[in-house]
């Protein structure tokens, strides 16, 4: 087992290298001169100022050198400073990361606590009205766009529950309960697409498992349906679900940008959006790299979990 984990960790090296290259290329190889864009029209475009900025951003270096400098600094925990505020990028990220962590965790709890039981129930009651309603509900949940639901949620809460605090973010350190309460609705909005997907996926994997021979064996032993479900069906059905959950973390992270914007939450998603608007490329690069690394690490955890769920995985 330890060997398996170590091998997996070793496998992270090329993946993280790829992530960093992608982020670097996507952000820095933008057509046009970044310094031009950054300085804009208003600033007096003195040749000297531009030269200084170029040197400061290492833009006078060849591209591979720029990449190495950026990655080298990142490895030492230095993601540069904001071009607007001059604040270190890493500080900004660490300040905002708890909001994201909370949001994603709340969304995950919704997905697991609602999605998996609903999917199992639908499979168990296949072709009954219970199953049909769950399936139709899941389709709606899947196709409703995030931003629309977020807007409607804000609208409804503000109109009908004026005393609810939907757009006022309270830091966890100040009032944990108010903080979590305030994140429930954004968390649900963030979760809905993945949640619906997990409902349908769980339903189909449970149905597949129910048809298998060992489920028949379990029944032939005289076990009750509840025991058959919980010990024999569910663990096997969850193997594909867990895999998909890991990948869906990426979808959740993508959804963060939008959800945070609509609910005005001070998370990394909003930071990234603001940095794009302000063309603060250092912050943008740092934020995207951070999310990419988090995604890779989550999938590492999923891989390890997978080995616990399925003893046939060799390590």
């Amino acid at each position, binding site marked *: 087992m330890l060997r398996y984990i170590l091998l997996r960790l070793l496998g992270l090296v090329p993946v993280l290298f790829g992530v960093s290259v992608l982020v670097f290329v996507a952000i820095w190889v933008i057509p046009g001169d970044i310094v031009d864009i950054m300085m804009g029209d208003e600033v007096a475009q003195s040749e000297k100022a531009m030269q200084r900025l170029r040197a400061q951003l290492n833009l006078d270096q060849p591209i591979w050198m720029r990449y190495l400098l950026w990655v080298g600094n990142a490895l030492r925990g230095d993601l540069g400073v904001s071009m607007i505020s001059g604040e270190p990028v890493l500080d900004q990220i660490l300040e905002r990361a708890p909001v994201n962590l909370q949001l994603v965790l709340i969304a995950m709890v919704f997905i697991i606590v609602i999605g998996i039981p609903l999917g199992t129930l639908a499979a168990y009651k296949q072709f009954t009205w219970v199953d049909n309603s769950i399936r139709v509900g899941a389709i709606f949940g899947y196709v409703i766009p995030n931003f629309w639901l977020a807007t409607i949620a804000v609208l409804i809460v503000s109109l009908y529950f004026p005393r609810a605090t939907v757009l006022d973010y309270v830091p966890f350190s100040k009032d944990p309960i108010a903080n979590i309460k305030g994140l429930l609705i954004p968390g649900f909005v963030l979760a809905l697409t993945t949640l619906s997907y997990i409902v349908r996926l769980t339903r189909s994997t449970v149905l597949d498992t129910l048809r298998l021979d060992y489920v028949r064996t379990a029944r*032939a032993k*005289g076990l009750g349906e509840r025991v058959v479900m919980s010990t024999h069906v569910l663990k096997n059905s969850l193997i594909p679900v867990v895999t998909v959950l890991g990948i869906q973390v990426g979808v959740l992270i993508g959804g963060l940008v939008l959800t945070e914007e609509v609910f005005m939450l001070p998370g990394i998603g909003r930071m990234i959006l603001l940095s794009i608007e302000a063309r603060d490329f250092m912050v943008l690069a740092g934020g995207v790299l951070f999310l990419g690394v988090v995604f890779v690490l989550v999938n590492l955890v999923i891989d390890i979990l997978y080995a616990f769920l399925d003893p046939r995985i060799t390590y």
Partner: protein
Amino acid sequence: MSENPVPPAAAAAPAELPVLRIRDLRTHFFTGQGVVKAVDGVDLEVHKGEVLGIVGESGSGKSVTALSIMQLVASPPGRIVSGRIELDGLDMVKLDAAAMRRIRGKRISMIFQDPLASLNPVLRIGFQLGEVFRHHLGLEKRQAVTEAERMLRAMDIPSPATRVRNYPHQLSGGMRQRAMIAMALSCKPELLIADEPTTALDVTVQAQVLNLMKQVCREHRTALVLITHDMGVIANMCERVAVMYAGKVVEYTDVRTLFRRPGHPYAAGLLRSLPRLGGNARRLQSIEGQPPRLTRLPPGCAYAPRCPRAQPRCREEAPELVRLRPGQEVRCHFPLEGSLEGSLQGSPQGPLEGALEGSLHRPIPAALHAAPNAAPGAAR
């Protein structure tokens, strides 16, 4: 035929109440393409310590009969439409789900065809065997695993203490099926149903597994229903045989009579399609055509379209199961009267004994013949 017109042959056996008595069992599947009469009027009896073989092609209804006894027919679409399945006189068709759960795994057990697929891949062997003890005997988890280990040892599985901690994929095929047998026999059931227990195993392992089953059933006088399409297995394991075709028993007799003087043309066809050693190495005989589609059964005898002896009457009127000789019932208007070779028109087969021995001349039966009565470490 709600009342069986003919007393079943086994009724001639001792007056003791049979362990299993099936009366006019009908299990149908209600599908989009119509009603599939997978089992349609089956009568069977198994006595204590007896081995009943059920033989037939795929789709003949033998597996559905077994699942019906266990009340494990997938529903929907399947349903036991009518009939009685009595365990020591208790009609199980009428039992509710909870009562049936107390019988399954305790009084009746079942062994399935593919032991790898029949064991849960993500649970340890000890846990899966232990479940039976926990569920039926109320043992604690630790005790149950200890009992599971004891059962594995009784099945001659080497190093059972290690094996209980293994997952199914870490065991060999034969060992898995032994584990399944151990699981099935944990509560010393009165009836064991084995649905093609050796089909998925290597030929060399088949003999060991069959040997083990025969031995443990004999020790506990467990009644055994053995479902197979292998006539060699039938010849060596069974006392009585039911030949099934299209959801019905077409011949019900003892194994000697079946091999010497089969009454039903289909049974004779099955015997003729056995490969034989000795005699002319002629082309292997087979039964022409395919089993009928169960949604569209012909009005007369279901075998008539493939039967070389079919007469116009066969296509119009469905035959009943009637007594041909004492202890032999046949569902045919024109049953074969003579011995098997007499019925083999123009075929150059050797004497019947050759046929029987030919089928025996393979590792399984040979090993079974040599089966020692008490292998070391046998089931206790």
